[in-house]
């Protein structure tokens, strides 16, 4: 009987468990969970603070998940060392395994800002415990400074918006969501956020803190009660690095999710795999890729043959009713469809759709995403027809017949 060890208890771990169990119903699976929680949906912590979900509904899988999949979960312990066949925990327990999957995720990057230690109420915004700790200090009169205008910082802003006095978001970048939006699109989103009462200091950074005062590089001062640090994240790749495995910005994996060390796999935010939209390795820290990567690893760990070779960056995110979607990369020729309240930008190169950004017009966007993932040559479809509203009309009758007349 094979023994599997999964280090981590998030989305990639669930993918791995379900991947293993698709082939191996009896092997012994041990999950090491540093957090003392049943697996929950990380991206839902802002929705939790917004009262759009609760602890029960945040469970990524139901209460009986581990039991149904015959998994042993070790809560509150951290893996400190790995070898090809073993994992050592922080209480020096040694677990033996035939296949190991690293699904350790990422942690917030804490910038070396002078005086950060003098800030009394400072929080990260990555985990459920972060959200629960932040929730305790929320009240209608607190002023919040969020450092970082990326996905995490802005979702935090939306989540706490109705429960605090004011929110100021600063970022070194000169635009919001700089990792997924270009300047024009970011401008639209920023305006929308400002209309909802969020204040911004962009192209600016905290030079030093003195207690509840932030002194900005621009010379401005921000007086706050709570500081949320959402500057960026770092992959938890130390276990592999210490064991001599290949690590770049994340743990290097191939399309089978194998690390450079035999019998050891990695998936999710800790890993760096192939980004099919740019044709190079990248950390693609998004939930769908964590699940698919984990599931791919699981199948291969159980002796199957699975590959994850069409990963692309993609995001669907909403703020105060405005939906934003993005996918792929934005090199190439840009064409756009614009109305008073919406903007769609498509990026094409060498006859293929490479990426897109959709603001406020997201209907059937998966048709666009599939064009990128499937590398559909645009000459084989009527792409112009689909820019205003995505439609299956662009495909030939034969292809449509397969899609809607067959088992897919």
């Amino acid at each position, binding site marked *: 009987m094979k023994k599997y060890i999964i280090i981590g208890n998030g989305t990639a771990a*669930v*993918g791995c468990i379900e991947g293993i169990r698709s082939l191996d119903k009896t092997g012994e699976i041990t999950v090491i969970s540093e957090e003392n929680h049943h697996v929950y*949906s990380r*991206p*839902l912590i802002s*929705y939790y603070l917004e009262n*759009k*979900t609760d602890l029960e*509904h*945040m*469970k*990524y*899988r139901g209460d009986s998940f581990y039991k149904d999949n015959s998994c042993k979960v070790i809560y509150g312990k951290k893996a400190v060392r790995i070898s090809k066949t073993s994992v050592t925990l922080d209480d020096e327990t040694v677990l033996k395994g035939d296949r190991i999957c690293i699904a350790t995720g990422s942690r917030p990057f804490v910038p070396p800002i002078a005086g950060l230690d003098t800030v009394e109420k400072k929080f990260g915004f990555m985990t459920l415990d972060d959200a629960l700790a932040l929730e305790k200090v929320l009240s209608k009169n607190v002023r919040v400074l969020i450092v970082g205008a990326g996905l995490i910082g802005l979702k935090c802003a939306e989540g706490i918006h109705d429960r605090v006095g004011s929110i100021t978001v600063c970022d070194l970048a000169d635009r919001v969501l700089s990792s997924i939006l270009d300047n024009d699109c970011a401008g639209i989103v920023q305006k929308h956020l400002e209309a909802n009462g969020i204040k911004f200091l962009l192209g600016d950074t905290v030079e030093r803190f003195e207690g509840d005062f932030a002194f900005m590089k621009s010379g401005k001062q921000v007086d706050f009660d709570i500081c949320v640090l959402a500057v960026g994240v770092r992959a938890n790749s130390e276990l592999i690095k210490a064991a001599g495995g290949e690590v770049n910005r994340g743990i290097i994996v191939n399309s089978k999710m194998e690390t450079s060390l035999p019998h050891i796999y990695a998936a999710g935010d800790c890993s760096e795999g192939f980004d099919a939209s740019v044709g190079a390795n990248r950390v693609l820290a998004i*939930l*769908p890729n964590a*699940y*698919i990567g984990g*599931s791919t690893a699981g199948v291969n760990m159980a002796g199957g043959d699975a590959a994850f070779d069409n990963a692309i960056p*993609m*995001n*669907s*995110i*909403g703020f105060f*009713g405005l*939906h934003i*979607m993005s*996918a792929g990369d934005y090199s190439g020729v840009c064409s756009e469809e614009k109305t008073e309240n919406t903007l769609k930008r498509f990026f094409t190169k060498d006859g293929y759709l490479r990426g897109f950004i959709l603001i406020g017009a*997201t*209907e*059937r*966007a*998966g*048709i666009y*995403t*599939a064009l990128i*993932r*499937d590398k559909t040559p645009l000459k084989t479809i009527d792409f112009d027809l689909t820019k205003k509203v*995505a*439609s*299956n*009309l662009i495909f030939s*009758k034969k292809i*449509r*017949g397969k*899609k*809607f*007349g*067959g*088992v*897919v």
Partner: protein
Amino acid sequence: MKRVYVNEEWCLGCHLCEYNCAFANSGLRDMAFALKDKKIFPRIHIEGDDKISFAVSCRHCTDPICIKSCIAGAISKVDGVVKIDRDKCVGCLTCVLVCPYGALAPAEDGIMQKCELCLNNSCGAPACVAGCPNKAIVYEERGEEK
């Protein structure tokens, strides 16, 4: 398993499937009361132009990417039917971003809903199929799953 399939050459583009879907999932007994003067949010929609039209609804894929992508773990497959737990869904629309068929759209409240083949409403079988005047949409077995 039985799924909804489309014969596009027979589709008249009458949109009746959309109305029958919205009514079937309204939980109401009177169609006029359920739909009259209301914007409907059906789980099937008609696409097309002046020459061709066809209905699009969830394909209940063999390997659904929506399930893998849902950030809330709200989508699951039960006996081959892809279902959504609307209490878990937070309306992020990631499933809309990944469904290659463009088959998914949110309900009026912004939370996702999807075709579940009318197996859990009072119809018991797809209302779009039952009401299609030209039998352009059918509910049957085609091909075998792996």
